[in-house]
């Protein structure tokens, strides 16, 4: 009897396991047939008052300054579209576990058939999301005239999949006192007339001879997206690249001579001890380092903190990225996209997208975040020569997006590994290894 019962229990457990496994193969979710959420078919959801509900998911906390700015624009939309009976609902999912945590939330929603009509997403994910049909093609829904008003667009294979919320750019913050003491004049170097790689090295050499660490290139920031975001323009400036135009080939691009030249420039700075992996996070702010590579988000820090070394804007300035073959600078931030969820009628979602990317919304949100507006027609009267002006002009003139590839996360990982290895490793070996890893990753996901 005991043996019989044990057998029955075992059979039931095996059956349960098989069921679990089979469910994995069987298409998994209830959203696969487009039915998804509550059987409201292809049209948008409506509430009891007959309003069409459009859901929009943000990557920030509702209580944050940025979150509050989004909510205000949503409230304004609901007031403006009351007569058209369209109502927007904001969902806030703060990135508690980084961008991958937010992405997991998106995927769970897609699996459950509850994916919002509009989502925010990090621009480098455009290719992977578009390739996976997560995003809706809005090429024909946004006029060319309107598209031209943005500094950058979320394009993949010639199609438009998203519009940026705001823009970013980076540059070299410098300590004017250290530069004055070392007798270095950099006033000629502007976004319109950037300095060259050689001029950059010459300034570093003078700073070193003055007894300070020349520049914090952030080569230690290889655990996340910081190093790729700040350092990729050097490779483009040297004439290099990472992948082919279609984003599917890394060989011949990531390991090309021009790309190697860009990385070699960074390695030379390390070898000459102009920069190092050992620079402390606050060394620039405490006057130990001459220059600091960072994005616009450092401006409020320099304006409000570290008053001991930077009492006013007379004590610090911002220099553009140096150029070699061409000028290139960092761009990119988060964007909006309409999703390919079970609502086939995208009319209401399109209205909300247009509203959230309008000049008014762009201005309201960038006023809250301090970032550069995504639209060229949102004029901010920055004083010529000011850090904000330099960032904006640089974005206009030399802004270049990160590589568009379906395997962007792997690109980011390999870029970090190359920067990590530059100190002791051979550039060519590092790039060949990175090329192989990236190509494998592209091959694995391109047809999914």
């Amino acid at each position, binding site marked *: *009897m005991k043996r019989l*019962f044990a057998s*029955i*229990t075992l059979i*039931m*457990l095996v*059956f*349960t*396991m098989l*069921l*679990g*496994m*089979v*469910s*994995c*193969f*069987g*298409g*998994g*979710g*209830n*959203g*696969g047939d487009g039915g998804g959420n509550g059987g409201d078919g292809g049209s948008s959801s409506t509430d009891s008052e007959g309003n069409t509900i459009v859901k929009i998911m943000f990557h920030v906390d509702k209580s944050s300054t940025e979150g509050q700015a989004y909510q205000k624009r949503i409230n304004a939309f609901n007031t403006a579209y009351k007569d058209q009976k369209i109502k927007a609902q904001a969902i806030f999912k703060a990135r508690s576990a980084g961008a*991958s945590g937010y*992405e*997991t939330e998106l*995927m769970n929603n*897609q*699996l*459950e058939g509850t994916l919002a009509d509009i989502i925010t997403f990090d621009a480098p994910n455009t290719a*992977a*999301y578009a*390739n*996976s*049909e*997560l995003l809706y093609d809005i090429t024909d829904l946004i006029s060319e005239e309107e598209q031209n008003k943005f500094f950058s667009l979320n394009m993949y294979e010639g199609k438009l999949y998203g519009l940026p919320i705001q823009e970013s750019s980076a540059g070299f913050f410098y300590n004017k006192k250290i530069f004055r003491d070392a007798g270095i004049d950099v006033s000629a170097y502007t976004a319109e007339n950037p300095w060259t790689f050689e001029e950059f090295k010459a300034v570093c050499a003078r700073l070193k001879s003055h007894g300070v660490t020349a520049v914090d290139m952030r080569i*230690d920031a*290889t*655990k*996340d997206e910081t190093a790729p975001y700040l350092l990729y323009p050097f490779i483009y400036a040297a004439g290099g690249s990472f992948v082919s135009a279609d984003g599917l080939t890394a060989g011949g691009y990531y390991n090309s001579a021009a790309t190697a030249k860009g990385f070699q420039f960074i390695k030379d700075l390390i070898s000459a001890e102009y920069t*190092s*992996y*050992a*620079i*402390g996070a606050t*060394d620039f702010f405490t006057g130990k380092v001459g220059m600091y590579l960072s994005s616009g988000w450092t401006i409020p820090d320099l304006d409000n903190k570290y008053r001991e070394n930077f009492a006013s804007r007379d004590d610090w300035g911002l220099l553009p990225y140096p150029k070699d073959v061409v000028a290139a600078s960092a761009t990119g931030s988060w964007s909006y996209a309409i999703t390919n969820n079970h609502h086939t009628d995208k009319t209401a979602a399109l209205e909300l997208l247009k509203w959230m990317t309008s000049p008014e919304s762009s201005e309201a949100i960038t006023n809250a975040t301090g970032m550069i507006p995504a639209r060229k027609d949102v004029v901010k009267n920055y004083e010529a020569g000011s850090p904000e002006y330099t960032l904006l002009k640089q974005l206009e003139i030399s802004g270049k997006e990160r590589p568009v590839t379906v*395997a962007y*996360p*792997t690109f980011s*990982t390999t870029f*970090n*590994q190359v920067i*990590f290895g530059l*100190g002791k490793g051979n550039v060519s070996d590092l790039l060949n290894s990175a090329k192989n*890893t990236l190509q494998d*990753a592209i091959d*694995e*996901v391109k047809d*999914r």
Partner: protein
Amino acid sequence: MIDTSILILGLFLLAFGGFAVYDLATAKRRREVYRVKSTVTAYLMLLPAVLLAFLFVLLPILYSLGYAFTDYYLLKPNDISFVKLENFVEIIEEISEKGMLYNAIKNTLTFVIGVVPLQIGLALLLALFVNRPCFGSKIFKVCFFAPVVISLSVTSFLWLQILAPGEGGLLNSLLGMFGIPPHDWLRDPETAMPCIIVLSAWQGCGYQMLIFLSGLSNIRKDLYEAASLDGASRWHQFWNVTWVGLRSTFVYILITVFIGACRILTQPMLMTGYMSHTVTLSYYMYNSGYTKRLVGESSAVALLMTIFIGGITLIQRRLFREK
């Protein structure tokens, strides 16, 4: 997926209910002390724990087991196909090509071999130290246990400051007082993993110390008195009384520390990032599943890792079985 999960849960509950009914039905025949009310109460009290274990342990394992044989791509959760053993073939290829997975296995083994004896040895030493009645032993207990209650993220950041490169790092500035030049501890492949081993042993040994202490409290004092009367030295007392008394505690600690060590993720992730000299199996799985979004491949590695850990644990249990 939710529907299937509910169905599986239903079947599991049916099996659990069946077992309870069978137990009730046969208890009388087995001539055990038989009370329907208390037996039913016992099973009802057991049910929440069993349910939670099923939902958060067994069910994810089942799904992971299934996904290991699929091409599940995180961005296409509704488009999953059965790919037979393809993921496992890729794993073997990556190991044979000495790719990142090879490094992950090598680093994980290095970590396990380093941290298990160090952490258990430290825990035993600390337990023996604080077990002796002396002034301030309670304060020492609290101090030694304190790192356990601090999250791994916090301790990792703390050790990042200690091991920071250049003269600004705490360890480097200390060594600098003796004329030793600064070293980049976490970038150097020779020193990065040993540093992570030391930090992990320091962080975790307080917990095992408490378990050893409870084991020590179960050893009768008169055994030491008898050994002492027989002229046994301190070492002989330790080896023939303390160690024998702690044997079952040691086996438990060995298995739990081994399993914990195999799963190391937070320290390399926060301290070095995804680098070949510190990547571990769990970190590789995380990167495959969440960064590269290849859930199928990640699940296959998880399955192999589960089999490996389970196998070693069984061997450990067999080797240390009471005769």
